[in-house]
């Protein structure tokens, strides 16, 4: 007897559906639907009150219409009315409609919430479940606000039915996921952990899901779940399959619960208790053993369920990464799956092996499967699987197999699906760079990439090869020769022309000795491509030509002829026209010496994280992190690549959430490029950090072109007036802050006004005010000399990812400052999130023709956004206690640098921003303060206590805030003030 008796349906609904299905055309269907909508609308609006049954029927019709993809903008009120029916079926359809079609209409939400509240209080388990379902399905913040506090009570109440507990657990989980701040932690957490022992397996499954989510943020609160989970798991794994009756699925005992338990355990490190650990290892071994047993059923469901547990077990083993024996077994098991006839298993095996490859113990073991994986890349029919194979090859690559893997991936690239080509290109480029033993191989590989998949070679990739060639003089000759050969091909990709043009412009002289690649030959080869190229490439080639004039004086006449041609000098494109004009003039007016200076070879690029790596991470999202992990083993030890490898700090941990953070933190924090001489002159073309995005400058593409070339004069006029612009730093170049910058910054931690900097030429004064998370700062630049400053340009720079934490808007100032005059600059500041490093202020100008530059730290520190908070002693201590986690506190004991004067100290603390609280500390000598740091995204409550010890001339400073870095940072800032 079927559980759903088909005859019970609503006849009107069935008729309507049949009508729709009989419609011959889309138009007929729409017509029928519109008719029905009009009918329902009039019924709802009509004077006659509808009975529950009719409402139910109409709501059902609306649901059907919605499923067909039509907008439903009414009926919500009727659905809400159904919620308050005391008939189950009417209530049920009402809730269904709300869950599927919820509307953010707040009036309605209130009514819905009322109905839910009634049902939750009804003590009728069926109604309670409906209400819990609705909350979970909608999961909106409003619902969270209304019910988050009630659900834990229902969950742990002794008299709740199993089905209610089950629903309550998942409902709470959903609310916690949507708005974690709304779910109050409390004594119920301990009781939730004990649900792991519940009789009802459904309750246990729901509880495990809940705990897995909660324990990620509060690992300590739920620590006791480890031993409970292990014993539960052990009971399931060791039981005969019949013990769990209904929860046995195709002869596998409770597969979902096992999987969830194994996931939960992955939130924690291996159990510390030896007995628990022993029991767990036993479980894991049992699962691995069972995998070798003959299957109890031929059904695919049986093997699926069994393998679901097996893969989760392997994940846990990889997560622990501490039992070499288990790791090897896991690896062997995955190896078996790599050749399994089930595609799903091959897919999952490749995916798991990817994480295994980053484990110290099993990297070698994974490598033994290289041939199988390469074979998978070549022969798998499914693109999902091939993609996993490519990922795994990337992850298992190291110096020993790099050549093989790179060449296989290159070969695969020729036939690869378009969707994944770009990613493969990035991976090949990274591997080639990372494991290059000799750089000629690297250059060959990248040129091959361009040849095979030129369209998919992004800027990052070809920028990078230029960067590396420029930095390594041992490969320059080879690179010049190779690009020269590559350019001989009748049809070559535009990216090849770009790379070729740049390299020959820099290093063409290295192959000019060979008559086959003499300067005129090089030039005519490049120029033969010129007309087929885009504007950007042609602009680059023009720069190459002017460099040729310097490298090979014999080509001067030819090149000048090209530049002088009407097609260049009067080109419709301004960039090309300007370049042609300027270069032509430069080549005719400048002496050889000047030319040699202006067009000198590019200095080495500053070392930094590969922008390709950053791009791959962006492209792949969190998943890429694990594949990049192997950088950890390689980067520090064999650093033959001259430090162009990724910094170890960008390596992410296996946890997906940590990965996300890792991405943002990728550029080393607050690290202005090391002052490696030439680095200062160089433009940050290759970095994609925020610093490289000039706010006022040209678009990145133009920026690249105008800056990649040797220092290009801004206009012909400037060029003629000043024949040595090489010394003029580019607009985006920021030197390191001056040595005193930190000291100067410290002067402003507790005050807002004063002189920030002064030397013989320039004085910079500051006046600032801050309110909430906003601030305004006036900077006054005074010219102390009697000579006009020219090209005066102060700019504010956000090192690292500071931009996402602090927004500073600046107004431009006049570019001339007369002798003895003062100009004023206004900065609008908004604090978005808490931040640790201040922005940099870079001031550049020309004084009597000599360029001057200066970088300071802008006196904006996190404490400027303090709002003082007054509170009574009792409140203070209560909050102090609430912030008692070790990481919330920062403490410093230090020697007094200034006389210990209570009044001065008070003034400083007030200047620091916090309120001073009297009569709080039992010791009247001590100072206690409280305040809230206001940022756009969040508020951080701060409590501080300063204990002077006059005898020892020492202080002890303690900070407690709700955010660990803030505590530490405030503590450091303040400690330097006394």
């Amino acid at each position, binding site marked *: 007897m079927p*559980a*759903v*008796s*088909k*005859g*019970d*349906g609503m*006849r009107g609904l069935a008729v309507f*559906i049949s009508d729709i299905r009989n419609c011959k055309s889309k138009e007929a269907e729409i017509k029928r639907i519109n008719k029905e909508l009009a009918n329902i609308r009039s019924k709802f609006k009509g004077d006659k*009150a509808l*009975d529950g*049954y009719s409402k139910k029927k109409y709501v059902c019709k609306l*649901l059907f219409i919605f*499923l*067909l*993809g039509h*907008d439903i903008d009414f009926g919500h009120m009727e659905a809400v009315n159904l919620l*308050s*029916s*005391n008939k*189950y*079926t009417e209530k*049920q359809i009402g809730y*269904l409609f709300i869950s*599927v079609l*919820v509307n953010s209409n707040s009036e309605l939400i209130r009514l819905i919430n*009322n*109905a839910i*509240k009634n049902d939750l209080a009804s003590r009728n388990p*069926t109604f309670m479940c409906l209400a819990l*379902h609705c*909350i*979970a*399905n909608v999961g909106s913040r409003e619902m969270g606000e209304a019910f988050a506090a009630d659900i834990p009570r229902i969950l742990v109440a002794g008299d709740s039915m199993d089905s209610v507990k*089950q*629903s309550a657990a*998942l409902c709470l989980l*959903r609310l916690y996921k949507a708005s974690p701040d709304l779910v109050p932690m409390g004594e119920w957490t301990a009781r939730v952990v004990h649900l792991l022992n519940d009789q009802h*397996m*459904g309750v246990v*499954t*729901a509880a495990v*899901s809940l705990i897995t989510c909660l324990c990620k943020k509060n690992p300590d609160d739920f620590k006791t779940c480890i031993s409970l989970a292990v014993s539960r798991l052990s009971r399931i794994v060791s039981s005969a399959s019949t013990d769990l009756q*209904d929860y046995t699925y195709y002869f596998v005992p409770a*597969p*979902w619960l096992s*999987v969830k338990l194994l996931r939960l355990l992955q939130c924690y490190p291996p159990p510390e208790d030896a007995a628990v650990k022993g029991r767990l290892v036993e479980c894991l071994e049992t699962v691995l053993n069972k995998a070798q047993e003959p299957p109890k059923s031929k059904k695919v*469901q049986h093997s*699926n369920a069994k393998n*679901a547990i097996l893969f*989760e077990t392997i994940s846990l083993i990889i997560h622990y990464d501490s039992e070499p024996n288990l790791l090897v077994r896991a690896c062997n098991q995955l190896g078996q799956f790599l050749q399994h006839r089930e*595609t*799903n298993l091959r*897919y999952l095996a490749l995916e798991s092996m990817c994480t295994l490859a980053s484990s110290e113990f099993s990297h070698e073991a994974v490598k033994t499967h290289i041939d199988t994986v390469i074979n998978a890349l070549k022969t798998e*029919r*499914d693109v*999902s699987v091939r993609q996993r194979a490519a990922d795994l090859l990337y992850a298992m690559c190291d110096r020993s197999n790099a050549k093989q893997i790179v060449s296989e991936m290159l070969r695969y690239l020729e036939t690869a699906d378009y969707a994944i080509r770009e990613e493969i290109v990035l991976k090949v480029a990274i591997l080639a760079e990372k494991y290059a033993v000799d750089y000629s191989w690297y250059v060959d590989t990248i040129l091959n990439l361009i040849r095979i998949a030129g369209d998919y070679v992004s800027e990052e990739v070809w920028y990078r090869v230029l960067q590396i060639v420029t930095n390594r003089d041992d490969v320059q000759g080879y690179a010049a020769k190779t690009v020269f050969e590559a350019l001989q091909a009748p049809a070559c990709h535009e990216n090849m022309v770009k790379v070729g043009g740049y390299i020959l412009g820099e290093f063409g002289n290295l192959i000019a000795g060979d008559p086959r690649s003499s300067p005129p030959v090089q030039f005519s080869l490049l120029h033969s491509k010129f007309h087929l190229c885009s504007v950007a490439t042609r602009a680059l080639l023009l720069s190459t030509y002017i460099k040729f004039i310097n490298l090979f004086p014999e080509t001067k006449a030819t090149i000048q002829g090209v530049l002088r041609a009407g097609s260049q000098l009067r080109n419709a494109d301004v960039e090309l026209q300007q370049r042609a004009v300027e270069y032509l003039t430069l080549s005719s007016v400048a002496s050889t010496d000047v030319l040699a200076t202006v067009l000198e070879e590019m200095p080495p690029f500053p070392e930094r994280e590969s922008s390709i790596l950053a791009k791959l991470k962006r492209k792949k*999202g969190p*998943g890429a992190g694990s594949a990049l992990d192997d950088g950890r083993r390689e980067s520090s030890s064999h650093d033959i690549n001259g430090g162009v490898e990724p910094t170890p700090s960008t390596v992410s941990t296996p946890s*997906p959430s940590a990965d996300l953070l890792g991405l943002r933190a990728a550029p080393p924090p607050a690290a202005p490029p090391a002052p490696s001489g030439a680095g200062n002159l160089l433009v940050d073309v290759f970095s994609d950090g925020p610093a490289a995005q000039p706010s006022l400058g040209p678009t990145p593409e133009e920026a690249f072109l105008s800056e990649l070339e040797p220092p290009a004069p801004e206009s012909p006029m400037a060029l003629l007036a000043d024949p040595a612009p090489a010394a003029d730093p580019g607009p985006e170049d920021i030197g390191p802050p001056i040595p005193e910058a930190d000291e100067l910054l410290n002067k402003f931690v507790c005050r807002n006004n004063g002189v920030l900097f002064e030397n013989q030429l320039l004085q910079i004064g500051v006046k600032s005010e801050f309110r909430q998370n906003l601030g305004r700062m006036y900077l006054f630049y005074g010219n102390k000399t009697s000579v006009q400053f020219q090209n005066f340009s102060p700019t504010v720079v956000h090192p690292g990812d500071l931009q996402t934490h602090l927004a500073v808007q600046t107004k431009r100032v006049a570019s001339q400052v007369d002798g003895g005059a003062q100009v004023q600059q206004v900065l609008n500041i908004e604090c978005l999130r808490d931040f640790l490093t201040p922005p940099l202020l870079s001031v550049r100008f020309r004084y009597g023709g000599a360029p001057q530059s200066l970088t300071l730290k802008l006196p904006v520190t996190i404490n400027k956004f303090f709002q003082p908070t007054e509170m009574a002693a009792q409140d203070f201590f209560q909050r102090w206690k609430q912030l008692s986690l070790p990481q919330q506190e920062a403490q410093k004991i230090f020697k007094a640098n200034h006389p210990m004067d209570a009044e001065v100290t008070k003034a400083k603390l007030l200047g620091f921003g916090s309120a001073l609280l009297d009569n709080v500390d039992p010791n009247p000598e001590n100072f206690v303060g409280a305040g809230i740091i206001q940022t756009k995204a969040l508020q951080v409550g701060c409590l501080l206590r300063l204990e002077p010890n006059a005898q020892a001339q020492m202080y002890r400073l303690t900070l407690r805030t709700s955010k660990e870095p803030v505590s530490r940072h405030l503590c450091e800032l303040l400690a330097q003030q006394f």
Partner: protein
Amino acid sequence: MIQAILVFNNHGKPRLVRFYQRFPEEIQQQIIRETFHLVLKRDDNICNFLEGGSLIGGSDYKLIYRHYATLYFVFCVDSSESELGILDLIQVFVETLDKCFENVCELDLIFHMDKVHYILQEVVMGGMVLETNMNEIVAQIEAQNRLEKSEMTLRVSLIPTFTSPQGGLSAAPARAVSAVKNINLPEMPRNINIGDLNIKVPNLSQFV
């Protein structure tokens, strides 16, 4: 977490759509179309997982699907779910449908959309797996049906005074129901309903 459950037929007609994350309606339809095109071009015997489409959540999401006769069952899940586990869950859902409808077919999904939703609700709640034990799920559905029946009898039991004896009722409940509809409704049930409603709504709206 399960982000969405989509069931459509071989022509891409949606038969059951459930989103556990809010998307505007046109985006929902776009997701259905995109998902359909993604799975349609895949052979039946290749793997059941594929990287999520561009619309739901990006690369952390996977589509896990099974193809049964005329219907595709597609679950869009994030990395916190076990792929094989979800594959089994689809199987449980379909087997449950089969039990409840006795040889379920596409038409059952069309004409009993509400019932299908209720069955799904017993398996997945707010994007999380609620129950995997088929017997338990079927028991819940049967309990629901009993409730429904009892409400129906309540409704119809008022009729005998006006119409036929109950004999015809169990034989043709649908006809009985429409009979109820055609008769001018007896006052009684409405009073029960509305009486209750009157007490609840005004009282509570004052609270807010």
